[in-house]
Protein backbone atom coordinates (compact mmCIF):
# COMPACT_ATOMS: atom_id res chain seq x y z
CA UNK A 1 0.00 0.00 0.00
CA UNK A 2 2.91 2.30 0.71
CA UNK A 3 4.10 2.04 -2.82
CA UNK A 4 0.62 2.30 -4.27
CA UNK A 5 -1.07 5.32 -2.75
CA UNK A 6 0.74 7.51 -0.26
CA UNK A 7 -2.06 10.09 -0.33
CA UNK A 8 -4.69 7.79 1.13
CA UNK A 9 -2.20 6.57 3.70
CA UNK A 10 -1.17 10.08 4.71
CA UNK A 11 -4.78 11.26 4.70
CA UNK A 12 -5.89 8.40 6.93
CA UNK A 13 -3.04 8.97 9.35
CA UNK A 14 -3.79 12.69 9.58
CA UNK A 15 -7.50 12.07 10.17
CA UNK A 16 -6.76 9.58 12.93
CA UNK A 17 -4.16 11.86 14.46
CA UNK A 18 -6.51 14.83 14.42
CA UNK A 19 -9.23 12.74 16.08
CA UNK A 20 -6.77 11.96 18.86
CA UNK A 21 -5.83 15.63 19.17
CA UNK A 22 -9.45 16.74 19.39
CA UNK A 23 -10.14 14.12 22.03
CA UNK A 24 -7.17 15.31 24.11
CA UNK A 25 -8.20 18.94 23.68
CA UNK A 26 -11.65 18.11 25.00
CA UNK A 27 -9.96 16.97 28.22
CA UNK A 28 -8.05 20.23 28.82
CA UNK A 29 -8.78 21.97 32.07
CA UNK A 30 -11.63 24.46 31.86
CA UNK A 31 -10.31 26.56 34.72
CA UNK A 32 -9.40 29.53 32.54
CA UNK A 33 -12.45 29.50 30.26
CA UNK A 34 -14.38 32.29 31.94
CA UNK A 35 -11.42 34.59 32.61
CA UNK A 36 -9.92 34.99 29.17
CA UNK A 37 -11.47 35.93 25.87
CA UNK A 38 -9.50 33.33 23.93
CA UNK A 39 -9.34 29.96 25.58
CA UNK A 40 -6.09 27.95 25.76
CA UNK A 41 -7.85 25.21 23.82
CA UNK A 42 -8.65 27.55 20.89
CA UNK A 43 -5.48 27.00 18.91
CA UNK A 44 -4.97 23.28 19.53
CA UNK A 45 -8.63 22.72 18.68
CA UNK A 46 -8.45 24.67 15.44
CA UNK A 47 -5.21 22.98 14.44
CA UNK A 48 -6.91 19.66 15.13
CA UNK A 49 -9.78 20.63 12.84
CA UNK A 50 -7.29 21.92 10.26
CA UNK A 51 -5.48 18.58 10.26
CA UNK A 52 -8.83 16.80 9.96
CA UNK A 53 -9.75 18.96 6.97
CA UNK A 54 -6.43 18.65 5.18
CA UNK A 55 -6.20 14.96 5.97
CA UNK A 56 -9.60 14.45 4.37
CA UNK A 57 -8.61 16.51 1.33
CA UNK A 58 -5.40 14.51 0.88
CA UNK A 59 -7.31 11.24 1.29
CA UNK A 60 -9.83 12.27 -1.37
CA UNK A 61 -7.01 13.42 -3.66
CA UNK A 62 -5.50 9.98 -3.27
CA UNK A 63 -8.74 8.26 -4.15
CA UNK A 64 -9.33 10.44 -7.21
CA UNK A 65 -5.78 10.74 -8.50
CA UNK A 66 -3.26 8.23 -7.17
CA UNK A 67 0.19 9.80 -6.82
CA UNK A 68 3.46 8.32 -7.88
CA UNK A 69 4.54 5.61 -5.45
CA UNK A 70 6.50 6.59 -2.36
CA UNK A 71 9.67 4.95 -3.62
CA UNK A 72 10.58 5.22 -7.28
CA UNK A 73 12.55 2.04 -6.87
CA UNK A 74 11.19 -0.23 -4.16
CA UNK A 75 13.87 -0.62 -1.46
CA UNK A 76 15.26 -4.08 -1.00
CA UNK A 77 14.37 -6.14 2.03
CA UNK A 78 17.99 -5.93 3.13
CA UNK A 79 18.05 -2.13 3.12
CA UNK A 80 14.73 -2.01 5.00
CA UNK A 81 16.17 -4.30 7.66
CA UNK A 82 19.31 -2.17 7.78
CA UNK A 83 17.29 1.01 8.24
CA UNK A 84 15.11 -0.50 10.97
CA UNK A 85 18.10 -2.01 12.74
CA UNK A 86 20.01 1.26 12.51
CA UNK A 87 17.11 3.14 14.05
CA UNK A 88 16.89 0.58 16.85
CA UNK A 89 20.62 0.97 17.35
CA UNK A 90 20.15 4.71 17.84
CA UNK A 91 17.40 3.93 20.35
CA UNK A 92 19.73 1.52 22.13
CA UNK A 93 22.41 4.23 22.24
CA UNK A 94 19.91 6.56 23.89
CA UNK A 95 19.04 3.84 26.42
CA UNK A 96 22.64 2.92 27.30
CA UNK A 97 24.10 6.43 27.36
CA UNK A 98 23.16 7.16 30.98
CA UNK A 99 24.04 3.61 32.03
CA UNK A 100 27.34 2.88 30.32
CA UNK A 101 28.52 6.44 29.67
CA UNK A 102 29.31 8.29 26.47
CA UNK A 103 32.62 6.66 25.52
CA UNK A 104 31.57 3.02 25.83
CA UNK A 105 28.08 3.53 24.32
CA UNK A 106 29.36 5.57 21.42
CA UNK A 107 32.17 3.15 20.63
CA UNK A 108 29.79 0.22 20.60
CA UNK A 109 27.31 2.18 18.51
CA UNK A 110 29.88 3.18 15.90
CA UNK A 111 31.32 -0.33 15.64
CA UNK A 112 27.93 -1.99 15.32
CA UNK A 113 26.56 0.66 12.95
CA UNK A 114 29.52 0.31 10.60
CA UNK A 115 29.19 -3.47 10.68
CA UNK A 116 25.49 -3.09 9.92
CA UNK A 117 26.32 -0.91 6.91
CA UNK A 118 28.70 -3.61 5.70
CA UNK A 119 32.06 -2.25 6.70
CA UNK A 120 33.92 -5.54 6.64
CA UNK A 121 37.37 -4.25 7.54
CA UNK A 122 37.49 -4.69 11.31
CA UNK A 123 40.71 -2.80 11.91
CA UNK A 124 39.54 0.18 9.85
CA UNK A 125 36.24 0.08 11.73
CA UNK A 126 38.00 0.17 15.10
CA UNK A 127 40.40 2.92 14.05
CA UNK A 128 37.61 5.12 12.73
CA UNK A 129 35.54 4.50 15.84
CA UNK A 130 38.38 5.38 18.18
CA UNK A 131 39.29 8.51 16.25
CA UNK A 132 35.77 9.80 15.91
CA UNK A 133 34.67 9.11 19.46
CA UNK A 134 37.84 10.65 20.82
CA UNK A 135 37.33 13.74 18.63
CA UNK A 136 33.70 14.09 19.72
CA UNK A 137 34.60 13.64 23.37
CA UNK A 138 37.37 16.21 23.11
CA UNK A 139 35.17 18.71 21.29
CA UNK A 140 32.17 18.50 23.60
CA UNK A 141 33.70 17.60 26.92
CA UNK A 142 36.99 19.50 26.89
CA UNK A 143 36.49 22.42 24.51
CA UNK A 144 32.81 23.09 25.06
CA UNK A 145 32.65 21.80 28.64
CA UNK A 146 29.48 19.79 28.04
CA UNK A 147 29.18 17.24 30.89
CA UNK A 148 28.81 14.12 28.77
CA UNK A 149 27.29 11.11 30.55
CA UNK A 150 29.80 9.00 32.47
CA UNK A 151 29.48 5.32 33.09
CA UNK A 152 30.40 3.38 36.22
CA UNK A 153 34.02 3.41 35.00
CA UNK A 154 34.29 7.21 35.24
CA UNK A 155 34.21 7.90 31.51
Amino acid sequence: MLTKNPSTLLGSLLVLFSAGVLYLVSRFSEAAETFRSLSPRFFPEYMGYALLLFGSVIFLQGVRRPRAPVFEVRPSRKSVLQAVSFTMLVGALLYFLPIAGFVVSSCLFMILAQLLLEEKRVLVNLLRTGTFVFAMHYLFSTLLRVPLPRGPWGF
Partner: protein
Amino acid sequence: MLLAALETVFTLKMIALIFGGSALGIIVGALPGLSATMGMALMLPVTFYMPPSEGILMLLGLYTGAVFGGAYSAILLNIPGAPPSVMTSLDGYPMSQRGEAGRAISLATVGSTLGGIAGIIALIIIAPILARFALRFGPAEYTVLAVFGLSAIVAVSGKSLARGFAGVSLGVLLSTVGMDHFTNISRFTFGSIELMSGINFIPVVIGLFGLAEVISQILETAKEGVIYKTIKHLFLSRSDFLKVLKGFLPASFIGIVIGVLPGAGGTIASIISYNQAVQSSKEPEKFGTGIPEGIIASETANNASVGGAMVPLLTLGVPGSSPAAILLGALLIHNLRPGPILFTTQPMLINTIFIGLMVAQFSLLLWGFATAKIAPWILAVRREVMLPAIALLCVVGSFALKNSFFDVGIMLVSGIAGFFLNKLGVKPGTVILGLILGPMFENNLRSTIEISGIAPVFTSPICIVLWILTAIMILYPICRMLRLKKCESE
Protein backbone atom coordinates in the same frame (compact mmCIF):
# COMPACT_ATOMS: atom_id res chain seq x y z
CA MET B 1 29.87 51.39 15.83
CA LEU B 2 31.02 50.16 12.42
CA LEU B 3 34.66 50.54 13.41
CA ALA B 4 34.02 48.64 16.61
CA ALA B 5 32.34 45.87 14.64
CA LEU B 6 35.30 45.75 12.25
CA GLU B 7 37.64 45.42 15.21
CA THR B 8 35.47 42.60 16.56
CA VAL B 9 35.38 40.65 13.30
CA PHE B 10 38.99 41.17 12.22
CA THR B 11 40.56 39.22 15.05
CA LEU B 12 42.37 35.95 14.52
CA LYS B 13 39.73 33.96 16.41
CA MET B 14 36.76 35.38 14.52
CA ILE B 15 38.40 35.02 11.12
CA ALA B 16 39.32 31.44 12.01
CA LEU B 17 35.72 30.73 13.04
CA ILE B 18 34.27 32.20 9.86
CA PHE B 19 36.78 30.47 7.62
CA GLY B 20 36.46 27.25 9.61
CA GLY B 21 32.68 27.39 9.45
CA SER B 22 32.84 28.08 5.73
CA ALA B 23 35.20 25.14 5.11
CA LEU B 24 32.99 22.84 7.16
CA GLY B 25 29.98 24.14 5.27
CA ILE B 26 31.62 23.37 1.93
CA ILE B 27 32.26 19.80 3.07
CA VAL B 28 28.68 19.45 4.35
CA GLY B 29 27.26 20.94 1.18
CA ALA B 30 29.48 18.83 -1.06
CA LEU B 31 28.43 15.52 0.43
CA PRO B 32 25.17 14.32 -1.10
CA GLY B 33 22.49 13.82 1.50
CA LEU B 34 23.82 16.50 3.80
CA SER B 35 22.41 20.00 3.59
CA ALA B 36 23.06 23.45 5.00
CA THR B 37 20.13 23.00 7.39
CA MET B 38 21.46 19.69 8.65
CA GLY B 39 24.99 21.01 9.10
CA MET B 40 23.76 24.07 10.94
CA ALA B 41 21.39 22.01 13.07
CA LEU B 42 24.28 19.75 14.09
CA MET B 43 26.59 22.69 14.86
CA LEU B 44 23.95 24.68 16.72
CA PRO B 45 24.50 22.97 20.09
CA VAL B 46 28.23 23.67 19.71
CA THR B 47 27.58 27.41 19.41
CA PHE B 48 25.55 27.39 22.60
CA TYR B 49 28.76 27.61 24.59
CA MET B 50 30.27 30.42 22.55
CA PRO B 51 29.64 34.17 22.82
CA PRO B 52 26.70 35.10 20.55
CA SER B 53 28.72 36.90 17.87
CA GLU B 54 31.20 34.02 17.54
CA GLY B 55 28.49 31.38 17.35
CA ILE B 56 26.39 33.31 14.86
CA LEU B 57 29.35 34.07 12.58
CA MET B 58 30.45 30.46 12.58
CA LEU B 59 26.96 29.38 11.59
CA LEU B 60 26.83 32.06 8.90
CA GLY B 61 30.14 30.81 7.51
CA LEU B 62 28.74 27.29 7.51
CA TYR B 63 25.52 28.44 5.81
CA THR B 64 27.40 30.29 3.09
CA GLY B 65 29.83 27.43 2.52
CA ALA B 66 27.14 24.75 2.46
CA VAL B 67 25.02 26.58 -0.12
CA PHE B 68 28.08 26.79 -2.37
CA GLY B 69 29.51 23.36 -1.54
CA GLY B 70 26.67 21.53 -3.24
CA ALA B 71 28.16 22.64 -6.55
CA TYR B 72 31.09 20.22 -6.16
CA SER B 73 29.06 17.04 -6.28
CA ALA B 74 26.64 18.58 -8.77
CA ILE B 75 29.54 19.22 -11.14
CA LEU B 76 31.66 16.15 -10.43
CA LEU B 77 29.02 13.52 -9.70
CA ASN B 78 25.81 14.85 -11.28
CA ILE B 79 24.29 14.58 -7.80
CA PRO B 80 23.45 17.92 -6.17
CA GLY B 81 25.25 17.91 -2.84
CA ALA B 82 22.72 20.31 -1.42
CA PRO B 83 19.24 21.13 -2.74
CA PRO B 84 20.17 24.67 -3.91
CA SER B 85 22.64 23.15 -6.39
CA VAL B 86 20.09 21.07 -8.22
CA MET B 87 20.23 23.25 -11.34
CA THR B 88 24.03 23.48 -11.28
CA SER B 89 24.34 19.84 -12.30
CA LEU B 90 22.44 20.46 -15.55
CA ASP B 91 25.35 22.36 -17.04
CA GLY B 92 28.11 21.62 -14.54
CA TYR B 93 28.23 17.87 -15.09
CA PRO B 94 28.32 17.99 -18.92
CA MET B 95 31.13 20.54 -18.60
CA SER B 96 33.10 18.20 -16.34
CA GLN B 97 32.47 15.31 -18.73
CA ARG B 98 34.27 17.35 -21.40
CA GLY B 99 37.28 17.64 -19.07
CA GLU B 100 36.37 21.18 -17.95
CA ALA B 101 35.57 20.44 -14.30
CA GLY B 102 38.01 23.13 -13.16
CA ARG B 103 36.29 25.70 -15.34
CA ALA B 104 32.88 24.70 -13.96
CA ILE B 105 34.09 24.93 -10.36
CA SER B 106 35.69 28.32 -11.04
CA LEU B 107 32.45 29.64 -12.53
CA ALA B 108 30.52 28.36 -9.52
CA THR B 109 33.04 29.88 -7.09
CA VAL B 110 33.12 33.33 -8.64
CA GLY B 111 29.36 33.37 -9.32
CA SER B 112 28.61 32.32 -5.74
CA THR B 113 30.94 34.95 -4.29
CA LEU B 114 29.51 37.78 -6.37
CA GLY B 115 25.94 36.65 -5.68
CA GLY B 116 26.68 36.41 -1.99
CA ILE B 117 28.16 39.90 -1.92
CA ALA B 118 25.13 41.30 -3.77
CA GLY B 119 22.85 39.62 -1.24
CA ILE B 120 24.71 41.13 1.68
CA ILE B 121 24.71 44.60 0.15
CA ALA B 122 20.93 44.26 -0.24
CA LEU B 123 20.72 43.11 3.38
CA ILE B 124 22.76 46.09 4.63
CA ILE B 125 20.57 48.53 2.67
CA ILE B 126 17.13 46.99 3.24
CA ALA B 127 17.40 45.66 6.78
CA PRO B 128 17.74 48.95 8.70
CA ILE B 129 14.90 50.50 6.67
CA LEU B 130 12.64 47.52 7.25
CA ALA B 131 13.62 47.39 10.93
CA ARG B 132 12.59 51.05 11.42
CA PHE B 133 9.33 50.31 9.63
CA ALA B 134 8.81 47.19 11.73
CA LEU B 135 8.79 49.35 14.89
CA ARG B 136 5.24 50.20 13.88
CA PHE B 137 4.29 46.54 14.14
CA GLY B 138 2.08 45.68 17.06
CA PRO B 139 0.51 42.37 18.07
CA ALA B 140 -2.06 42.60 15.25
CA GLU B 141 0.62 43.15 12.62
CA TYR B 142 2.76 40.31 13.97
CA THR B 143 -0.28 38.04 13.88
CA VAL B 144 -0.85 38.68 10.20
CA LEU B 145 2.89 38.55 9.53
CA ALA B 146 2.95 35.05 11.02
CA VAL B 147 0.02 34.08 8.79
CA PHE B 148 1.87 35.51 5.79
CA GLY B 149 5.02 33.62 6.75
CA LEU B 150 3.12 30.36 7.13
CA SER B 151 1.28 30.80 3.84
CA ALA B 152 4.49 31.65 2.02
CA ILE B 153 6.00 28.41 3.25
CA VAL B 154 2.98 26.52 1.99
CA ALA B 155 3.12 28.21 -1.40
CA VAL B 156 6.65 27.07 -2.03
CA SER B 157 6.32 23.69 -0.33
CA GLY B 158 5.79 21.74 -3.51
CA LYS B 159 2.94 20.70 -5.72
CA SER B 160 0.47 19.83 -3.00
CA LEU B 161 -0.96 22.78 -1.10
CA ALA B 162 -2.92 20.45 1.16
CA ARG B 163 0.30 18.72 2.25
CA GLY B 164 1.93 22.09 2.83
CA PHE B 165 -0.97 23.23 5.02
CA ALA B 166 -0.96 19.91 6.84
CA GLY B 167 2.76 20.25 7.61
CA VAL B 168 2.33 23.79 8.85
CA SER B 169 -0.70 22.83 10.98
CA LEU B 170 1.29 19.99 12.49
CA GLY B 171 4.13 22.35 13.33
CA VAL B 172 1.77 24.91 14.89
CA LEU B 173 0.09 22.14 16.87
CA LEU B 174 3.45 20.94 18.20
CA SER B 175 4.20 24.50 19.30
CA THR B 176 1.16 24.41 21.61
CA VAL B 177 2.62 21.59 23.72
CA GLY B 178 3.47 22.77 27.21
CA MET B 179 2.13 25.32 29.64
CA ASP B 180 -0.04 27.98 28.09
CA HIS B 181 1.64 31.36 28.62
CA PHE B 182 -1.59 33.20 29.35
CA THR B 183 -3.34 30.81 31.71
CA ASN B 184 -0.71 28.24 32.83
CA ILE B 185 -3.00 25.45 31.73
CA SER B 186 -1.12 22.31 30.64
CA ARG B 187 -1.60 21.33 27.02
CA PHE B 188 -0.60 17.88 25.75
CA THR B 189 1.90 17.37 28.58
CA PHE B 190 0.57 13.94 29.69
CA GLY B 191 1.81 14.72 33.20
CA SER B 192 5.42 14.96 32.03
CA ILE B 193 7.59 17.63 33.66
CA GLU B 194 9.82 17.83 30.61
CA LEU B 195 6.89 18.51 28.30
CA MET B 196 5.65 21.34 30.49
CA SER B 197 8.31 23.62 29.07
CA GLY B 198 7.21 22.72 25.57
CA ILE B 199 9.00 20.98 22.74
CA ASN B 200 12.39 22.52 22.06
CA PHE B 201 12.54 23.01 18.33
CA ILE B 202 16.26 22.31 18.02
CA PRO B 203 16.09 18.54 18.69
CA VAL B 204 13.12 18.48 16.31
CA VAL B 205 15.23 20.19 13.63
CA ILE B 206 18.14 17.82 14.24
CA GLY B 207 15.77 14.85 14.00
CA LEU B 208 13.84 16.03 10.95
CA PHE B 209 16.85 17.10 8.92
CA GLY B 210 19.58 14.91 10.40
CA LEU B 211 18.37 11.52 11.51
CA ALA B 212 15.52 11.34 8.99
CA GLU B 213 17.99 11.88 6.17
CA VAL B 214 20.32 9.20 7.55
CA ILE B 215 17.46 6.68 7.58
CA SER B 216 16.49 7.74 4.08
CA GLN B 217 20.04 7.27 2.82
CA ILE B 218 20.27 3.78 4.28
CA LEU B 219 17.09 2.80 2.47
CA GLU B 220 17.86 4.25 -0.90
CA THR B 221 20.54 2.79 -3.09
CA ALA B 222 23.33 5.30 -3.26
CA LYS B 223 23.88 6.70 -6.72
CA GLU B 224 27.40 6.12 -7.77
CA GLY B 225 28.58 8.55 -10.37
CA VAL B 226 31.93 8.54 -12.05
CA ILE B 227 34.08 11.04 -10.21
CA TYR B 228 36.27 13.08 -12.45
CA LYS B 229 39.42 13.22 -10.39
CA THR B 230 41.43 15.48 -12.62
CA ILE B 231 40.71 19.10 -11.86
CA LYS B 232 42.61 21.43 -14.15
CA HIS B 233 42.42 25.07 -15.30
CA LEU B 234 40.98 26.56 -12.19
CA PHE B 235 41.17 30.22 -13.15
CA LEU B 236 38.59 31.88 -15.33
CA SER B 237 39.30 33.09 -18.82
CA ARG B 238 38.46 36.68 -19.74
CA SER B 239 35.37 35.67 -21.70
CA ASP B 240 34.06 33.51 -18.86
CA PHE B 241 34.61 36.32 -16.38
CA LEU B 242 32.65 38.68 -18.62
CA LYS B 243 29.84 36.12 -18.76
CA VAL B 244 29.80 36.03 -14.96
CA LEU B 245 29.59 39.82 -14.80
CA LYS B 246 26.76 39.80 -17.32
CA GLY B 247 24.76 37.09 -15.62
CA PHE B 248 25.22 37.86 -11.96
CA LEU B 249 22.94 40.91 -11.70
CA PRO B 250 19.62 39.32 -12.75
CA ALA B 251 20.50 36.13 -10.87
CA SER B 252 21.38 38.09 -7.73
CA PHE B 253 18.16 40.06 -7.91
CA ILE B 254 16.12 36.88 -8.17
CA GLY B 255 18.08 35.29 -5.34
CA ILE B 256 17.59 38.27 -3.05
CA VAL B 257 13.85 38.59 -3.72
CA ILE B 258 13.21 34.86 -3.33
CA GLY B 259 15.45 34.70 -0.27
CA VAL B 260 13.34 37.35 1.43
CA LEU B 261 10.21 35.23 1.10
CA PRO B 262 9.74 33.14 4.22
CA GLY B 263 10.42 29.47 3.61
CA ALA B 264 11.64 29.88 0.03
CA GLY B 265 15.43 29.68 0.16
CA GLY B 266 18.22 28.91 -2.28
CA THR B 267 16.60 25.96 -4.05
CA ILE B 268 13.65 27.95 -5.36
CA ALA B 269 15.95 30.87 -6.16
CA SER B 270 18.29 28.76 -8.28
CA ILE B 271 15.41 27.12 -10.17
CA ILE B 272 13.72 30.44 -10.98
CA SER B 273 17.04 32.06 -11.91
CA TYR B 274 17.97 29.18 -14.22
CA ASN B 275 14.57 29.32 -15.92
CA GLN B 276 14.90 33.07 -16.33
CA ALA B 277 18.35 32.65 -17.88
CA VAL B 278 16.98 30.08 -20.34
CA GLN B 279 14.06 32.27 -21.33
CA SER B 280 16.14 35.40 -21.77
CA SER B 281 18.92 33.66 -23.71
CA LYS B 282 19.32 33.94 -27.49
CA GLU B 283 20.36 30.28 -27.54
CA PRO B 284 18.10 28.55 -25.00
CA GLU B 285 18.70 25.15 -26.62
CA LYS B 286 22.31 25.23 -25.41
CA PHE B 287 21.28 25.15 -21.74
CA GLY B 288 21.85 21.69 -20.35
CA THR B 289 24.78 20.98 -22.63
CA GLY B 290 27.42 22.51 -20.37
CA ILE B 291 27.44 26.28 -20.84
CA PRO B 292 28.72 28.82 -18.29
CA GLU B 293 25.45 30.77 -18.18
CA GLY B 294 23.63 27.83 -16.59
CA ILE B 295 26.11 27.49 -13.74
CA ILE B 296 26.27 31.25 -13.20
CA ALA B 297 22.48 31.60 -13.00
CA SER B 298 22.08 28.80 -10.49
CA GLU B 299 25.03 29.43 -8.20
CA THR B 300 24.74 33.21 -8.11
CA ALA B 301 21.05 33.09 -7.18
CA ASN B 302 21.41 30.47 -4.47
CA ASN B 303 24.16 32.40 -2.70
CA ALA B 304 22.38 35.74 -3.12
CA SER B 305 19.41 34.17 -1.33
CA VAL B 306 21.56 33.88 1.83
CA GLY B 307 21.56 37.65 2.26
CA GLY B 308 17.91 37.81 1.25
CA ALA B 309 16.93 35.21 3.84
CA MET B 310 18.59 37.24 6.56
CA VAL B 311 16.39 40.30 5.87
CA PRO B 312 13.10 38.99 7.35
CA LEU B 313 15.01 37.06 10.00
CA LEU B 314 16.84 40.03 11.47
CA THR B 315 14.13 42.63 10.96
CA LEU B 316 10.95 40.72 11.69
CA GLY B 317 12.05 37.51 13.36
CA VAL B 318 10.59 35.48 10.48
CA PRO B 319 13.14 33.11 8.92
CA GLY B 320 13.52 33.40 5.16
CA SER B 321 14.71 29.81 4.79
CA SER B 322 15.21 26.63 6.82
CA PRO B 323 18.87 27.47 7.57
CA ALA B 324 17.71 30.93 8.66
CA ALA B 325 15.37 29.15 11.06
CA ILE B 326 18.42 27.53 12.64
CA LEU B 327 20.01 30.96 12.97
CA LEU B 328 16.85 32.11 14.69
CA GLY B 329 17.37 29.25 17.12
CA ALA B 330 20.95 30.36 17.69
CA LEU B 331 19.82 33.89 18.48
CA LEU B 332 17.08 32.66 20.82
CA ILE B 333 19.53 30.40 22.66
CA HIS B 334 21.51 33.53 23.50
CA ASN B 335 18.34 35.38 24.56
CA LEU B 336 18.42 37.62 21.51
CA ARG B 337 15.00 38.08 19.96
CA PRO B 338 15.41 39.13 16.32
CA GLY B 339 13.27 42.00 15.18
CA PRO B 340 13.41 45.78 15.15
CA ILE B 341 14.36 45.94 18.84
CA LEU B 342 17.53 43.99 18.06
CA PHE B 343 18.66 46.81 15.77
CA THR B 344 18.30 49.35 18.56
CA THR B 345 19.56 47.26 21.49
CA GLN B 346 22.31 45.28 19.71
CA PRO B 347 23.62 47.45 16.85
CA MET B 348 27.10 46.07 17.41
CA LEU B 349 25.89 42.51 16.83
CA ILE B 350 24.01 43.57 13.70
CA ASN B 351 27.07 45.28 12.24
CA THR B 352 29.20 42.28 13.21
CA ILE B 353 26.80 40.00 11.33
CA PHE B 354 26.95 42.23 8.23
CA ILE B 355 30.73 42.35 8.20
CA GLY B 356 31.09 38.68 9.11
CA LEU B 357 28.84 37.69 6.21
CA MET B 358 30.96 39.75 3.84
CA VAL B 359 34.12 38.06 5.14
CA ALA B 360 32.41 34.68 4.63
CA GLN B 361 31.94 35.46 0.94
CA PHE B 362 35.65 36.10 0.54
CA SER B 363 36.36 32.89 2.39
CA LEU B 364 34.28 31.16 -0.31
CA LEU B 365 36.56 32.60 -2.94
CA LEU B 366 39.59 31.28 -1.11
CA TRP B 367 38.21 27.85 -0.24
CA GLY B 368 36.51 27.41 -3.58
CA PHE B 369 39.83 27.48 -5.41
CA ALA B 370 41.88 25.92 -2.60
CA THR B 371 39.65 22.85 -2.12
CA ALA B 372 38.75 22.26 -5.76
CA LYS B 373 41.65 19.86 -6.25
CA ILE B 374 40.74 17.76 -3.22
CA ALA B 375 36.99 17.83 -3.87
CA PRO B 376 36.98 14.35 -5.47
CA TRP B 377 38.51 12.93 -2.29
CA ILE B 378 35.91 14.63 -0.09
CA LEU B 379 33.19 13.12 -2.22
CA ALA B 380 34.68 9.66 -1.82
CA VAL B 381 33.77 9.51 1.89
CA ARG B 382 32.02 6.22 2.37
CA ARG B 383 28.53 6.04 3.79
CA GLU B 384 29.53 3.30 6.26
CA VAL B 385 31.40 5.92 8.26
CA MET B 386 29.44 9.05 7.34
CA LEU B 387 25.98 7.86 8.38
CA PRO B 388 26.88 6.51 11.85
CA ALA B 389 28.98 9.62 12.47
CA ILE B 390 26.05 11.88 11.61
CA ALA B 391 23.69 9.84 13.79
CA LEU B 392 26.08 10.05 16.74
CA LEU B 393 26.44 13.78 16.20
CA CYS B 394 22.63 14.08 16.20
CA VAL B 395 22.46 12.28 19.55
CA VAL B 396 25.26 14.23 21.21
CA GLY B 397 24.10 17.53 19.75
CA SER B 398 20.56 17.04 21.04
CA PHE B 399 21.89 16.05 24.48
CA ALA B 400 24.30 18.98 24.71
CA LEU B 401 21.55 21.63 24.57
CA LYS B 402 20.14 21.07 28.04
CA ASN B 403 22.01 17.90 29.14
CA SER B 404 18.68 16.19 28.67
CA PHE B 405 18.08 12.65 27.44
CA PHE B 406 14.50 13.69 26.86
CA ASP B 407 15.66 15.99 24.07
CA VAL B 408 17.49 13.05 22.51
CA GLY B 409 14.24 11.12 22.66
CA ILE B 410 12.45 14.01 20.95
CA MET B 411 15.16 13.96 18.28
CA LEU B 412 14.72 10.22 17.73
CA VAL B 413 10.94 10.45 17.46
CA SER B 414 11.21 13.47 15.14
CA GLY B 415 13.69 11.61 12.97
CA ILE B 416 11.41 8.61 12.53
CA ALA B 417 8.32 10.76 12.03
CA GLY B 418 10.22 13.08 9.68
CA PHE B 419 11.32 10.17 7.52
CA PHE B 420 7.73 8.99 7.04
CA LEU B 421 6.36 12.49 6.56
CA ASN B 422 8.99 13.22 3.91
CA LYS B 423 8.23 10.02 2.07
CA LEU B 424 4.52 10.77 2.16
CA GLY B 425 5.09 14.22 0.69
CA VAL B 426 5.05 16.51 3.74
CA LYS B 427 8.18 18.63 3.68
CA PRO B 428 10.00 18.86 7.04
CA GLY B 429 10.61 22.58 6.45
CA THR B 430 6.87 23.27 6.70
CA VAL B 431 6.69 21.52 10.08
CA ILE B 432 9.71 23.38 11.45
CA LEU B 433 8.55 26.78 10.34
CA GLY B 434 5.09 26.02 11.73
CA LEU B 435 6.78 25.13 15.03
CA ILE B 436 8.70 28.42 15.01
CA LEU B 437 5.95 30.75 13.78
CA GLY B 438 3.15 29.05 15.72
CA PRO B 439 3.90 30.82 19.03
CA MET B 440 4.23 34.16 17.20
CA PHE B 441 0.82 33.59 15.64
CA GLU B 442 -0.95 32.40 18.78
CA ASN B 443 0.58 34.75 21.33
CA ASN B 444 0.12 37.85 19.21
CA LEU B 445 -3.44 36.94 18.21
CA ARG B 446 -4.41 36.38 21.82
CA SER B 447 -2.69 39.61 22.86
CA THR B 448 -4.55 41.52 20.14
CA ILE B 449 -7.88 40.14 21.24
CA GLU B 450 -7.11 40.87 24.87
CA ILE B 451 -6.11 44.48 24.15
CA SER B 452 -8.52 45.62 21.46
CA GLY B 453 -10.51 42.75 20.07
CA ILE B 454 -10.07 41.11 16.68
CA ALA B 455 -10.78 44.21 14.57
CA PRO B 456 -7.19 45.57 14.23
CA VAL B 457 -6.15 42.30 12.57
CA PHE B 458 -8.37 43.26 9.62
CA THR B 459 -8.38 47.04 9.73
CA SER B 460 -4.80 48.13 10.37
CA PRO B 461 -3.21 49.36 7.08
CA ILE B 462 -0.12 47.17 7.51
CA CYS B 463 -2.35 44.17 8.18
CA ILE B 464 -4.38 44.86 5.05
CA VAL B 465 -1.20 44.90 2.93
CA LEU B 466 -0.03 41.68 4.56
CA TRP B 467 -3.41 40.02 3.96
CA ILE B 468 -3.21 40.96 0.28
CA LEU B 469 0.29 39.49 0.06
CA THR B 470 -0.95 36.36 1.85
CA ALA B 471 -3.78 35.98 -0.64
CA ILE B 472 -1.31 36.34 -3.52
CA MET B 473 0.97 33.72 -1.97
CA ILE B 474 -1.88 31.23 -1.71
CA LEU B 475 -3.67 32.01 -4.96
CA TYR B 476 -0.58 32.21 -7.19
CA PRO B 477 0.34 28.51 -7.03
CA ILE B 478 -3.33 27.55 -7.50
CA CYS B 479 -3.61 29.74 -10.62
CA ARG B 480 -0.32 28.40 -11.90
CA MET B 481 -1.54 24.82 -11.41
CA LEU B 482 -4.80 25.53 -13.21
CA ARG B 483 -2.94 27.21 -16.07
CA LEU B 484 -0.59 24.23 -16.39
CA LYS B 485 -3.52 21.83 -16.46
CA LYS B 486 -5.19 23.92 -19.14
CA CYS B 487 -2.00 23.87 -21.25
CA GLU B 488 -1.69 20.11 -20.80
CA SER B 489 -5.28 19.48 -21.87
CA GLU B 490 -4.76 21.69 -24.96
